[in-house]
C-alpha cells in the first residue's frame, strides 16, 4: 500500500502522518505529481486560509492534477473545502469536485466551531463500523452546505455536510486523525476502500 499525503505547504500534516503510522502505514509526504498519481491512496490535507491555499496548489500545478486522480482521495478539513466549487473565504474558486459552495458560519454562533460534535446520516463505506452520532473533532469557520454528495452531516447553526463523496473522492470537515478511536476507524476504512 502506497499512501501519499499531498504536501503543498498548507498546514499541519505531521498529525496525519502519525495517525497512519499508528495504524502501521508509513505515508509519504510529497508534492511530486508522478508520485501522487502512482499512489494507491491519496490524502489531501489543509489547514489555514482557503484562497492562499488555492494559490499554493496552483503554483505547483496540483490544482489540475487532483481532480484527475482515479485512486481513492481523502480531503481533510480545508482539503475537503478546496475540493468544492468555491469558498467564501477569500472568495476563491475551488477544484470543483464536489458540487457545493463553502460558506461562513454567521455570528449567531461562535466562530470557529471548535471541539467535538456528532456526525449523523452516515452513508458511505468510509463509516463502516462507525456509529451514528459518533463524536469527531472539528475546527472550522466555513462549512459545506448540506447537498446531494453529503455522506454525513453535523449540526452547528444548521445541519451541514460534514463529509462528502463523489466517485473516488472523499472529504471530511472533521479531523479523523485527531478524533480518537472512532477517527482511527475512519482512516482504517479509507485504507480498505
Amino acid at each position: 500500500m502506497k499512501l501519499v499525503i499531498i504536501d503543498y505547504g498548507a498546514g499541519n500534516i505531521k498529525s496525519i502522518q502519525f495517525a497512519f503510522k499508528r495504524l502501521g502505514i508509513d505515508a509519504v509526504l510529497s508534492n511530486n505529481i508522478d508520485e501522487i498519481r502512482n499512489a494507491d491512496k491519496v490524502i489531501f490535507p489543509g489547514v489555514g486560509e482557503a484562497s492562499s491555499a488555492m494559490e499554493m496548489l496552483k503554483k505547483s500545478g496540483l490544482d489540475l492534477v487532483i481532480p484527475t486522480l482515479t485512486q481513492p482521495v481523502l480531503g481533510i478539513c480545508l482539503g475537503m473545502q478546496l475540493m468544492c466549487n468555491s469558498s467564501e473565504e477569500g472568495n476563491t474558486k475551488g477544484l470543483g469536485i464536489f458540487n457545493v459552495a463553502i460558506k461562513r458560519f454567521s455570528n449567531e454562533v461562535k466562530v470557529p466551531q471548535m471541539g467535538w460534535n456528532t456526525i449523523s446520516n452516515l452513508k458511505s463505506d468510509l463509516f463502516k463500523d462507525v456509529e451514528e452520532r459518533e463524536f469527531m473533532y472539528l475546527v472550522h469557520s466555513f462549512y459545506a452546505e448540506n447537498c446531494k454528495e453529503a455522506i454525513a452531516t453535523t449540526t452547528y447553526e444548521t445541519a451541514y455536510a460534514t463529509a462528502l463523496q463523489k466517485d473516488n473522492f472523499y472529504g471530511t470537515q472533521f479531523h479523523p486523525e485527531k478524533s480518537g478511536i472512532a477517527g482511527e476507524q475512519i482512516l482504517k476504512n479509507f485504507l480498505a476502500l
Partner: protein
Amino acid sequence: MLTKRIIPCLDIKNGRTVKGVNFVNLIDAGDPVVLAKQYAELGADELVFLDIAATLENRGTTLDMVLKVAEQVNIPFTVGGGISSIEHVDALLKCGADKISINSSAVKRPELVNELSQKFGSQCVVVAIDAKKIDGEWIVHLAGGTISTELNLFDWAKEVEKRGAGEILFTSMNNDGTKAGFANEALAKLSTELNIPIIASGGAGKVQHFIDTFVDGKSDAALAASVFHFGEIPIPDLKKELKENNIPVRL
C-alpha cells in the same frame, strides 16, 4: 451538538511533567507522553502543555516532546510557554502541535496575533490571558500574575479577537489555586461580548464548579490541572455528572 470540552493542563520543564502528578499505575508520571495517552483514554477532549521554564536553550527538548506526543496521542493538543516568534510556532506546528498559545508576547507586541493567524490560521492561535480583579476592574497580568499591565481584560480580549485569535484561555488570578470555582461572572461577560470560544481556567475544585462555569460562566471549555492530576476529579465521573446536568459532553 457541539460539546463542552474538558482540558487537563500539564506543566512541562525540560520535556518532563513537573507539577505533582499522582496517577495510579503509571510507570513514569514525569513522562508527558504517558500522561497524555492516559488522559486521552480517560476521555479528555484536548490537552494543554505549558512549558513553564521555556528558554531558547531548551527549545529543542520541548520540540522533541511535542513530536513524541503527536506521534502517540490521538486527540488535539496545545503548546504554550515562551512563544514569541513565527519561526517558533512554525517549528511547533511542524512537530505536530495542533494549536499554540501565546500570552506575554502578545501583550508586548500585539501584531504577533495578526501575523500568526494570517500565516497559520486563527484555528491554531490561542491567546492566554491572566487577569486579576483589582478594585472592581479586571487587569491583565503577565509572568504568572506577578507583573501588572495597563490593559483591561475585556478590552484586551476584544482586541486579540479582532487581530485573529481563534480562542481565549482566561485564567483568573483571583481564583487560581483556590479550588473555590471559576471566575464565572467575567467568563460570561467574555463569552457574551466575544464571538470566539472561551476556555475557563483557575479555580476548579469540585464537579459543581465545572457545571457552574458551563452554565453561569457560558464557558466553551474548562481547563484544570491538580484536580485531574491527583485524581480528585476523575474525568469519566466528571463527564457523567455533566451529562446528568444536561451539559453536552463527549462520552
